[in-house]
């Protein structure tokens, strides 16, 4: 019996494809964001609002992952203006770089400023899979509880921005904005935090400004 020493990263194939996507996006100066959250936190609603509000301003593309159905992609196509492609994972709990690369095969890269990747609703599995994004944006909603960051530290550690959605419902829950902030910053001291409500529209301007700043920085 012999022991052979190795140094082989398990996700090296995923990371290689992710690096290709990242290079392609960077060559075209496209800001690429990977949106992650639990099911029902409001990723699709946020994107609908964003496409409608910034459609005249920024040229956006979007790939929307779901385990089954193309419902999210259909909703986002209806929001108008953006290039939208669905990814149906057929059971897989996360997107991997190869799925994204396939969905992007006919993307009009030269005509885009911003690409969203809407991941499958899940705070565990998508965290280990690099999709070639510039940043991960993690959404939580006030109805989910303020301990979400502590329960899913891997995802919050890897994200650059945390959006707290459904602030219009905060009064009806035990959600504490101070607690969620403390919990999140203890895991990731560099995390940006925004609060908003897709339903009432409160705070959306802050998100649009955040996006415009990051798009501008990517182009510089």
């Amino acid at each position, binding site marked *: *019996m*012999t*022991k*052979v*020493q*190795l*140094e*082989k*990263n*398990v*996700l*090296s*194939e*995923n990371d290689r494809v992710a690096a290709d996507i990242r290079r392609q996006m960077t060559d075209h100066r496209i800001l690429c964001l990977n949106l992650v959250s639990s099911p029902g936190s409001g990723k699709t609603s946020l994107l609908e609002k964003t496409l409608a509000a910034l459609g005249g301003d920024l040229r956006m593309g979007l790939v929307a992952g779901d385990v089954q159905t193309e419902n999210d992609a259909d909703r986002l196509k209806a929001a108008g203006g953006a290039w939208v492609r669905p990814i149906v994972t057929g059971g*897989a*709990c*996360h997107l*991997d770089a190869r799925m994204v690369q396939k969905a992007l095969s006919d993307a009009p890269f030269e005509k885009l400023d911003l690409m969203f990747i809407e991941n499958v609703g899940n705070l*565990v*599995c998508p*965290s*280990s*899979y690099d999709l070639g994004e510039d940043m991960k944006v993690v959404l939580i909603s006030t109805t989910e509880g303020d301990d979400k960051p*502590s329960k899913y*530290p*891997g995802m919050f*550690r890897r994200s650059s921005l945390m959006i707290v959605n459904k602030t219009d419902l905060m009064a009806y829950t035990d959600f504490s904005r101070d607690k969620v902030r403390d919990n999140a*910053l*203890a*895991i*990731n*001291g*560099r995390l940006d935090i925004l609060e908003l409500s897709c339903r009432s529209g409160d705070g959306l301007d802050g998100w649009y400004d955040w996006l415009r700043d990051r798009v501008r920085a990517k182009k510089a």
Partner: protein
Amino acid sequence: MHELAMADSIVTGVLEEIGRRGITRVLAVGLEVGELMDVVPDSLKFGFEVAVRGTELAGARLEITEVPLTAECPGCTQSFRVEKYLFVCPICGNRDINVLTGKELRVTFLEIDDDA
């Protein structure tokens, strides 16, 4: 349950490696898993058992070594174990710290049968 997809990637990677090296029989695959990778070792072992079926790795064990989460504070240059996912320097309270270990997911050794 991303463990099944990971197990699949492990098996694909190891099959490539043994093909390249001309190894025919593998008894065990050694794997380092970082604490931050959100991997459940038992689920990964189960996924591995399923993924090796019908391949040259059938019957091989998966030996998992868990790598603890450690970090370094750029302020006071101390390195420390990150407890309970609190990414805060225990010396100076700095939250802007760099992870040193805990993101591993790599095959580190193969135990092979020389008689095969």
